[in-house]
């Protein structure tokens, strides 16, 4: 436990001093702000850049607040996740490759403390970023489109944060298992590829971990079908534990790959 604390302290210092704690939330705030503002001012923007051709009839869709939150989630799901994965996928493997891990591994260090500290801080930073992003999105959505029900929003956010937890566990576990490049490729393939797969054929499958973001959004809408939701939640928790266990195992078995 004390090792975990020491290592978390180290990771937090790293996040702070490398400005990760600053620029990652900023990225998410930008992503979160873009959808409500762009959609609201779309007509004005089109006019400003040359206008709509005469005789061209275009009906701008009427967005509800939930639609805008969904659009922001879409941003987080693509660009946001790639940025998060790219930032944290080297968290273990890079330390091994550049040799800084060597002087930690020669200590009587617990590999579970090592992995958990990495995962904890990665998840913490990711969660702060996502919450900042949603807060920014919510702020403009409420101003421009009307109120969002609080309890629904909190339920959605909690579900989405579980998804972030899961993605970060996968990312850090991959980092413990492979070299940075391989880990990055595999993680992005699994997360982004899985998300695309889900959006294409997801309607035929009722239970999958990639359903978490979409079911979190469903929590916002009025007609919400919760039958598979609990199963998906359980599946995600199960996977989370599996990823963490694999990560700890790989941390231990790959310790000797550190550059001496």
């Amino acid at each position, binding site marked *: 436990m*004390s*090792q975990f604390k*020491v*290592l978390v*302290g*180290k990771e937090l*210092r*790293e996040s702070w*001093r*490398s400005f990760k704690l600053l620029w990652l939330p900023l990225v998410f705030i930008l992503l979160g702000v873009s959808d409500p503002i762009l959609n609201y001012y779309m007509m004005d923007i089109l006019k400003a850049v040359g206008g709509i051709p005469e005789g061209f009839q275009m009906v701008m869709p009427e967005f509800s607040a939930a639609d805008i939150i969904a659009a922001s989630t879409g941003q987080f799901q693509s660009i946001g996740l790639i940025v998060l994965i790219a930032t944290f996928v080297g968290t273990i493997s890079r330390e091994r490759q*550049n*040799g*800084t891990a*060597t*002087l*930690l*591994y*020669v*200590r*009587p*260090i617990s590999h579970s403390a090592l992995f958990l500290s990495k995962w904890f801080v990665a998840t913490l930073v990711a969660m702060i970023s996502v919450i900042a992003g949603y807060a920014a999105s919510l702020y403009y959505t409420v101003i421009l489109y009307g109120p969002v029900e609080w309890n629904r929003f909190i339920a959605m956010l909690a579900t989405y944060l579980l998804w972030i937890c899961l993605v970060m566990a996968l990312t850090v576990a991959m980092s413990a298992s492979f070299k940075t490049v391989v880990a990055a490729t595999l993680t992005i393939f699994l997360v982004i590829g899985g998300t695309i797969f889900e959006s294409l054929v997801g309607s035929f499958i009722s239970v999958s971990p990639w359903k978490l973001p979409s079911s979190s959004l469903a929590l916002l809408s009025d007609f919400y079908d919760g039958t598979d939701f609990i199963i998906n939640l359980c599946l995600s928790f199960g996977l989370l534990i599996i990823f963490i266990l694999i990560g700890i195992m790989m941390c231990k078995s790959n*310790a*000797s790959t*550190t*550059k*001496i």
Partner: protein
Amino acid sequence: MTLITVSDLTKTFGNQTVVDNISFSIEPNTSTALIGPNGAGKTTTLSMLTGLLSQTSGSIKMEGVKDMRSVIGFLPQYPKFFSWLSALEYTEMVAKLSGIEVKQAKLQSQKILEYVGLGAALHKKTGTFSGGMKQRLGIAQALVHKPKLLLLDEPVSALDPVGRREIMNLLKEIQNETTILYSTHILNDAEEMTDQLLFLRGGKLVEKGSLKEVRARFEEPRFKIKFSSSQQALQFASQSELHCHVEGEKVFVEIVHEQPTMQQMLNRLANSQFSIESIEKVTASLEEIFMKVVGSYESV
């Protein structure tokens, strides 16, 4: 009493044997040099002792110690630190990881950093350190938890002559308080502080013993006589029945079973008409011994 016993240690990568059946033991408060050319298996041996690598076969035992990592301090050849931590933060962190409690960790870190000469750089980021400072920090982090055995991988090879001298002096000081095992390919270093020499070649332990023992085995005592001209040298060599070897104006006379003695040589030369510039008894330098023991690498 033996501090650590290594027996039949072997490491293979694929079908390549990097460390081949090494056995040795180290007494407390001594320093041992692991000597060998590049690729002899020095770093691999040290890595196994630190627990970074697991051995293919053989054993490493330390009396009464469960997790050897808690009583070992290790300095790799090129120590890498987290560049965004200061020297004090780094040392404190690794001390805590070695199980030292918070207050003590801070005290010990400050003390050890001042001891290695980084007192003025306590709060500087390690990313800004020079090679010599990094090596000092490396030694500090290896010593901060007061280890029983200090493992150093080529501690001075990467340093300039000044840095080298400073680190050597530091190590000599440390030598009085702890047990040191270090690898090197620089023999002068080994000559300066060593109780035991281990010569590695191609992963095999080819020679071991104290500096004196190894010396005695390989020194090949000779007389070096310098004549005034090379003709005289040749003439002397052809006339004498001794085992001679001529190099320009110099003649080397082998001493076999302590014969001839200096007295005999002097008598012999005094009664001759050769003009002599100097005569001295020479023994092989450690470098020559090194070449003899590990030099013929290809023939392995």
